[in-house]
């Protein structure tokens, strides 16, 4: 279990948006190409196989948290002391 938990799965927000965009583009592209090819050779099974290849490629590219999806981690603010917080509230 420790080993499973040690596998990194985290993407930052920017990476999540990218991953979703890439997966959509890849699957749509393979679907369109598969449709055209399947129509040319009149075999709908080829369309399905090409779409399945696109699904596999999209899975490999966008499911694991590759480094390109972790370039912009959130910049958290430095923790502040509670005293200064209270003084701010009073000012308002």
């Amino acid at each position, binding site marked *: 279990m420790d080993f499973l938990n040690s596998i990194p*799965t*985290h*993407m930052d927000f920017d990476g*999540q*948006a990218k*991953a*979703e965009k890439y*997966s*959509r583009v890849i*699957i*749509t592209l393979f*679907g369109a190409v*598969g*449709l055209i090819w*399947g*129509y040319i050779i*009149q*075999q*709908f099974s080829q*369309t*399905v196989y090409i*779409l*399945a290849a*696109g*699904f596999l490629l*999209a*899975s490999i590219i*966008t*499911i*694991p*948290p590759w480094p390109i999806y972790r370039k912009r981690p959130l910049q958290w603010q430095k923790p502040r002391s509670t005293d200064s917080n209270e003084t701010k509230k009073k000012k308002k």
Partner: protein
Amino acid sequence: MHSVLQRGNAILAYALSVLAFLTFLCFASTVFLDYRTKADMNTVKVVVKNVPDYSASREKNDLGFLTFDLQTDLSSLFNWNVKQLFLYLTAEYETANNQLNQVVLWDKIILRGENAVLDFKNMNTKYYFWDDGNGLKGNNNVTLTLSWNIIPNAGLLPNIFAHGSHSFKFPIEYTTSRM
């Protein structure tokens, strides 16, 4: 999209949506095609007997026997949305009891990729040509028609009637000898 499972789920759901859409396009690309074509048929030998129908009432009913020729080229019907054709040869006739009688005499399945240029000579029927009475003897207008049922990948299951039919007469005497 924050975890592996969520990303996998999103990709799978999107891929399946795309697959459904592609299947619909495949259906839409073939739904308006005209699947009718010409078929030539002819009867060779036609006799009628009067024998007990043990599968039904045991009463003596008319049983027709015929052999037929059939020529047609169905290879133009196949496309990416046709998996197989189910051909069936129907005899239609009118009797005193019924305005319309339809009996399927023969059928054949043609898978895509099989030879679809048919040229049969002197074929026997596959199924008995029973009448439900004595309507076959001397019946002078029995019409053979060929139809097919298209089995698609996606879409409708239309029954198509071929262009062309053949009308024939049954003899006015029963045949009693064994055939």
